[in-house]
C-alpha cells in the first residue's frame, strides 16, 4: 500500500461552495482530470447536504507539487457560488483566505471576517456566456487561471468531457471558463506568493479517482459477478458503477426491493457459484443481519460493502462516521467466523476489495469491507492499479456422486461445489445440519459442526492484512487508527513533527493483527483516533488484548477530521504542541 506523503507540501487549497444542483460535482471531476493532466497532484473531497436542490455544499480541492491525500481546514481561496456559506466552512476562513464571489453577498455574510474579498459574480458571468448553469465552469476557469493552465489542455478536456452534451455545450462551457480564467490570472500572483507549485513530472502511471470507483473496480477485479442492493447513501455509488458496467463485465446487477432481499439474493447467488456482494450503509446492513448469519451457517462466501454514515437510525444521511465497527463485528446471531477489512487509502480500496472476494471464497465466510462517506467521496491521484497483481483464486470443485457439502475436515473448510457441477447433490441449510446439509437435532453433531466452522478462524489468521506502521521503531507515543482516517492522520503527524510519536494503522479489524500487543506494550502512551463517540476500536483492542487505551481522540460531528485538528489534538495529548 502506498503511504501518505511525509513532506509538508506547499499546496493550494481551494474550496468551492454553492447550492446543490449547481453542478459542483461535475466540475470537480473535470478539475481533477485537467489539473492532473497539467502535472499537478490533486485531492478533492465533497461534503454535501441531504437534498437534491439548494442548501449549500462545499468541495475542497488541493493542488500540489507533491502528493496530497488529506483533508485540511486551511482555505487559501474560497469560491462562493451562491449565498449561504455554512458554519463548517465559515469557521475555516482566516485572514489569509482570499474569498471570491458576489461582493454584496460576501460583505453581508463575512462582515466579521477580515479575509480579503474579490468581487466576481459567477452567475452574471455565466449568464453572459449563455446561462447560469455555467457558473461552475467560471469557477473552474478561476482555478485554471490562477495556475495558468495551458489552454489547449483545457480545450481538449472540455471537448472530451462534455462531448456527449453537444458542441454548443462545449462552446458555452469554454466561454464561461475563459471568463473565470482571466480573473484567475489577475489574482494569481497574490494567491501563489508563498506556494511552491511547480508542476510535477512524476504523475506518469497515475490515475485519479474517488474511493467509490476504486472499491467498485476492486469488486470487478475480484471477479464479482452478482450484486443486488437497495440504494442508500453513501453506498449507492458502487451499485450504480457495477450496474453501468454489467454488460461489459458479465455482472448480474439488480436494484432489489429491500436489504433483506439483497443479502438473501447474494447468499443464493453464491450457493449457485456466483461471486456475490451487497453494498449498503448502517441502516440497510442492520436489516441484513439475519442474512449475514445465514451466510455464516451455510458457509457461503459473500462480500458486504458497508459504507458508514452517522447513526443511530437515519442519522445524517450524507455525512461521515466510523461508528459501525461494532455493528460489523457483532451483526448476525449465533457464532461464526467473519473477516472485516477497512481500506486506508483509495489504492487500498481497490486491492482490499479484490482480496475480499478471494478471502470469502477461500474460507467460505462473509467478508465485510468497511468504508465511509468521506472515503467514498474523496478523490486523489494514485499509482495505476495493477489488475494482474495477486491473481484471483477459485475454489469451487466438481461434486462426485458421494459429495457432501459439509464434509468435516481438519481446517474446517469443506470442498465447495455448486448445483449443476458434477454428479453430486449440493445441499445447504440454515438449520444446524449434517455433512449433507440436512437439518438434524443431534447434540454431538451440533458440537462438531460448530467446531468445524470456528476452526476456519485459525486458517483465516494465516492470511491477515498487515497494518501500516509509520515512524521510528523506538517510539514513546503510538497513534492507533483504522479506516479512512489514515492520510489525514499522516499529514497531522507531519505537521506535529514529533519524532517520539509513531503511527499504527489497522486495515483488518477482524481477526485483529496478532502482533498488535507487541506494539501496544512498547508505547508509553497509546492514543487511539476514531471517527465515533465511544472509541469502538479501543473497546475491541481491550477485549482482544486486555490492553486499556486511555487516550482517545474522537470525532462524531459528521465530518472527517482535518490534518490540523489531528496535529492540534495530538499535540495536547502528547504534551508537545504542533506548529499550528
Amino acid at each position, binding site marked *: 500500500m502506498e503511504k501518505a506523503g511525509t513532506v509538508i507540501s506547499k499546496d493550494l487549497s481551494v474550496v468551492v461552495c454553492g447550492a446543490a444542483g449547481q453542478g459542483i460535482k461535475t466540475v470537480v471531476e473535470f478539475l481533477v482530470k485537467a489539473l492532473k493532466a497539467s502535472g499537478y497532484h490533486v485531492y478533492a473531497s465533497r461534503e454535501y447536504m441531504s437534498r437534491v436542490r439548494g442548501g449549500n455544499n462545499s468541495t475542497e480541492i488541493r493542488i500540489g507539487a507533491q502528493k496530497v491525500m488529506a483533508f485540511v481546514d486551511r482555505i487559501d481561496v474560497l469560491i462562493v457560488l451562491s449565498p449561504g456559506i455554512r458554519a463548517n466552512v465559515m469557521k475555516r476562513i482566516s485572514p489569509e483566505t482570499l474569498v471570491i464571489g458576489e461582493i454584496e453577498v460576501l460583505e453581508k455574510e463575512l462582515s466579521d471576517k477580515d479575509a480579503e474579498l474579490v468581487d466576481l459574480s459567477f452567475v452574471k458571468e455565466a449568464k453572459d456566456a449563455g446561462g447560469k448553469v455555467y457558473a461552475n465552469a467560471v469557477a473552474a476557469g478561476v482555478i485554471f487561471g490562477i495556475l495558468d493552465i495551458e489552454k489547449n489542455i483545457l480545450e481538449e478536456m472540455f471537448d472530451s468531457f462534455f462531448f456527449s452534451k453537444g458542441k454548443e455545450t462545449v462552446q458555452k462551457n469554454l466561454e464561461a471558463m475563459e471568463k473565470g480564467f482571466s480573473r484567475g490570472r489577475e489574482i494569481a500572483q497574490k494567491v501563489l506568493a508563498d506556494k511552491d507549485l511547480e508542476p510535477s513530472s512524476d504523475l506518469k502511471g497515475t490515475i485519479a479517482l474517488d474511493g467509490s470507483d476504486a472499491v467498485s473496480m476492486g469488486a470487478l477485479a475480484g471477479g464479482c459477478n452478482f450484486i*443486488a442492493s437497495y440504494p442508500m447513501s453513501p453506498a449507492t455509488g458502487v451499485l450504480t458503477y457495477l450496474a453501468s458496467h*454489467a454488460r461489459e463485465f458479465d455482472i*448480474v446487477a439488480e436494484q432489489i426491493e429491500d436489504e433483506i432481499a439483497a443479502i*438473501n439474493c447474494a*447468499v*443464493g447467488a453464491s450457493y449457485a*457459484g456466483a461471486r456475490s456482494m451487497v453494498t449498503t450503509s448502517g441502516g440497510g446492513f442492520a436489516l441484513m443481519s439475519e*442474512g449475514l448469519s445465514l451466510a455464516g451457517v451455510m458457509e457461503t462466501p459473500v462480500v458486504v460493502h458497508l459504507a458508514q454514515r452517522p447513526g443511530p437510525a437515519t442519522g445524517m444521511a450524507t455525512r461521515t462516521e466510523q461508528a459501525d465497527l461494532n455493528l460489523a463485528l457483532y451483526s448476525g446471531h449465533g457464532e461464526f467466523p467473519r473477516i472485516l477489512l477497512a481500506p486506508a487509502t483509495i489504492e487500498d480500496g481497490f486491492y482490499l476489495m479484490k482480496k475480499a472476494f478471494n478471502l470469502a471464497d477461500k474460507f467460505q465466510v462473509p467478508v465485510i469491507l468497511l468504508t465511509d462517506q468521506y472515503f467514498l467521496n474523496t478523490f486523489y491521484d494514485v499509482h495505476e492499479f495493477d489488475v494482474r497483481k495477486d491473481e484471483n483464486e477459485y475454489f469451487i470443485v466438481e461434486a462426485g456422486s458421494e459429495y457432501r457439502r459439509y464434509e468435516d475436515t481438519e481446517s474446517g473448510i469443506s470442498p465447495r461445489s455448486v*448445483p449443476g457441477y458434477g454428479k453430486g447433490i449440493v445441499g445447504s441449510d*440454515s438449520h444446524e445440519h449434517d455433512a449433507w446439509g440436512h437439518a438434524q437435532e443431534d447434540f454431538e453433531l451440533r458440537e462438531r459442526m460448530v467446531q468445524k466452522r470456528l476452526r476456519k478462524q485459525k486458517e483465516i489468521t494465516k492470511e491477515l492484512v498487515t497494518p501500516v506502521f509509520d515512524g521510528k521503531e523506538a517510539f514513546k507515543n503510538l497513534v492507533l487508527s483504522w479506516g479512512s482516517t489514515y492520510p489525514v492522520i499522516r499529514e497531522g503527524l507531519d505537521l506535529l513533527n514529533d519524532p517520539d510519536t509513531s503511527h499504527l494503522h489497522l486495515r483488518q479489524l477482524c481477526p485483529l493483527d496478532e502482533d498488535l500487543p507487541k506494539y501496544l506494550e512498547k508505547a508509553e502512551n497509546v492514543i487511539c483516533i476514531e471517527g465515533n463517540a465511544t472509541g469502538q476500536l479501543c473497546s475491541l483492542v481491550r477485549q482482544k488484548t486486555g490492553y486499556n487505551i486511555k487516550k482517545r481522540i474522537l470525532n462524531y460531528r459528521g465530518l472527517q477530521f482535518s490534518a490540523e485538528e489531528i496535529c492540534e489534538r495530538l499535540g495536547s495529548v502528547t504534551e508537545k504542541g504542533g506548529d499550528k
Partner: protein
Amino acid sequence: MDASVFDLKDIDIQWCPGCGDFKILQSLKKSLAELDLAPEDTVIVSGIGQAGKTPHFMRSHFFNGLHGRSLSNGTAIKVSNPALNVVVIGGDGDMYGEGGNQLLHTIRRNPDITNLVFNNMIYGLTKGQASPTTSQGMKTTLQVEGVINEPVNPIAIAIAQNASFVARAFAGDVDETAEIIKKAVSHKGYALVDIFQPCVSFNKVNTYQWFSDNTWYVDESHDPRDREAAFRLALKNDSFPLGVLYRSEDKKTFEEWSPLYEKDDRPLFQRRPDPDKLAALVGSYR
C-alpha cells in the same frame, strides 16, 4: 423417470400423520419425474415452517434458507445458473406473511421459477396461531376471540400484479395437483401455485372434507389468458376454483433480460473477469 429417484432413504419425516404435505410431496415427485427432471437438475429452495422442511424429505439439490426469503434465494440461484430447475417452496406464513415484500417483487421481476405455497391457513410449526390466510372469525390459541384481519388473497394479488402464471391446487387430489405443478414447472416465467393443504393438528375448520366441499376445478370454458375472468374467479369467496387460473401475455424472464446470457449461456461460476477489459477501465482514469 420413476418418481422414486427423489426418495431419500432412512429418514424420519417430521410432518404429522395425515398432514396434507405428504400428498403435495408425492405430487411434486410425480410431476418432476414425468417431466424427466432429475434430482441433479433441480434445486428445491425453501424457507421456514412445515412446508420449508420439504427438501429434507426428498433427494435433489436444496437450499433451505430463512423465513420468508426463499424467493430471493431462488431468484438469485436461477439467474446465476439458468440451466437449473428452481422450485421455491414455502407455507402461507412464509410466503404471504414474512415474505410478503419478496413475493410482490418477485412477481414483478419474473424469474423462471416455480413457487409452491402449501397453504393450510394456519401456523403449524409455531403451534396454531393465525396465518395471513386464516379466515376471519376463526379462534386460535392466540386470536382467542377470533381472527379480525382480512385474509390475504394471493391469487388476486398475483393476477393484479400480472404474474405470468397463477394456479391453485388442493393437496388431497394428488394426480390433479401433479398435473398443475407440471404446467407450472414447464411454464417460462414466475409460476405461483397456491396449494390448499389441510392441517390436521391445528386447523379444524379447513379440513380435507371442507376443501373437497368448497373447491371445484375450472374447465375449458375458462380462458386463463382472460385477466378479468381470472380476477373474477380469484375474488370468489364462497367456493374456490382450482386449476390454472391465469397466464399473462408472454413475458421475458429476469434471466432473459440479463445481458450476460445474450451470447453466452455459461453459468456465473464458470466465468472469470477479463484483465484486459479491466486494465482498459483502470486506464480511463489516467
